[in-house]
């Protein structure tokens, strides 16, 4: 992912990835740091990772996007190259109030990459275009799960 997080957050995610690769779990001190940096989104994002809610979707021509199944059962679309999520929290807490770095879905996307918990799905180029647009019918993409 090319999107930029503050250096401390980038470093933390790297450490989580390293720790997970070596021990298959994330130590408590890193979990505490995660909560310190990302606030209440951290626990919610870890829940999403535990539930394997993050799916990376790719098309034959190599375009990719993420979908995250939210705790409410709704699917949210997150872009791979920059911070954007279709959830209301992203619009409110990240864009409008500036009191969160990212929403829990984008953080779950990062953590899924770090822990290898991300699911993969191939779709057609046309389907991927529809998901990028996050059209209303995306909720009907039951094949993602």
């Amino acid at each position, binding site marked *: 992912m*090319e999107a930029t997080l503050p250096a401390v957050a980038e470093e933390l995610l790297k450490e989580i990835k390293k720790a997970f690769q070596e021990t298959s779990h994330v130590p408590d001190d890193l979990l505490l740091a995660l909560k310190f940096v990302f606030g209440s989104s951290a626990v919610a994002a870890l829940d999403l990772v535990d539930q394997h809610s993050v799916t990376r979707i790719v*098309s034959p*021509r*190599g*375009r990719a*996007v993420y979908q995250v199944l939210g705790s409410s059962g709704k699917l949210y679309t997150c*872009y*791979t*190259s*920059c*911070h*954007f999520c*279709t959830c209301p929290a*992203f*619009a409110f807490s990240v*864009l*409008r109030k500036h009191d969160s770095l990212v929403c829990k879905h984008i953080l779950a996307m990062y953590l899924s990459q770090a822990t290898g918990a991300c699911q993969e799905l191939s779709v057609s*180029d*046309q389907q*991927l*275009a*529809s998901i*990028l*647009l*996050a059209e209303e019918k995306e909720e009907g993409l039951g094949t993602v799960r």
Partner: protein
Amino acid sequence: MSAALQGALGAAGPGPAPTPTLVLGPARSGRSALLFRAALGGPRALFLAPRALQRLPGARRGESDPRGLQRIQFLYPPSLRELLRLLASLHQSLPGPPALLLLDGLEQYLAGCPGPQAAARLAALLVDTASYFTGRLGADPQGSAPCCQLIASMRVSGETEVEDHLCILQRYFPAQCWLCLDSAAALGQEDCGGDRMFRARLSQPGAADQEWRLGFGLDGEMSVSPVLWGRAEDPGAASDTDRAAGAEK
């Protein structure tokens, strides 16, 4: 900053890694001319705008560079909805990845955005599309460009609601080039050689700002010369002989 935009302004030498760049300025400040000049100066470019340009801002009246034009593909999505659809499906429709993605008239699309999330979606989809093209260029062993640069232009007037989206756009466009009327030149304190003078100031995180002077002659031609801070200016010596007519919406 975008290396393509830097090239269009006549700066030499390698700069920092290209970042998405937003060109901001009032009406008739040369935004389209700068974008078009960037397109002419590089490899393959995709130029998006709400409607066709009435005349080419990269050439003098009656003149054009056919070879340069052949490297530019023009597409005119007329509405926000059409633009979003186009960006989301370019991986299907374009035969090869461009090295430069240009969007002229962003303010016209933002006018159709109902709120900040819609503006963010448009900016994010532009960045995502350029990022996808970068990946494709990297996969092409014969590719001549290392990445696809993104430059968008937006008219600012200080009054419109569209500008409320500016802080959101700055999340996705870390580099900004502001075009402002050169008040000193406008007062006739300098020999401008034309009827309109603008300053172009490029800012991006982690790099020193750079500034250029844009002059528009009576026939609409644009000339560019760097503003050298802290040193005596010699616009004549540094003046770019390449010209671009200042056709501007």
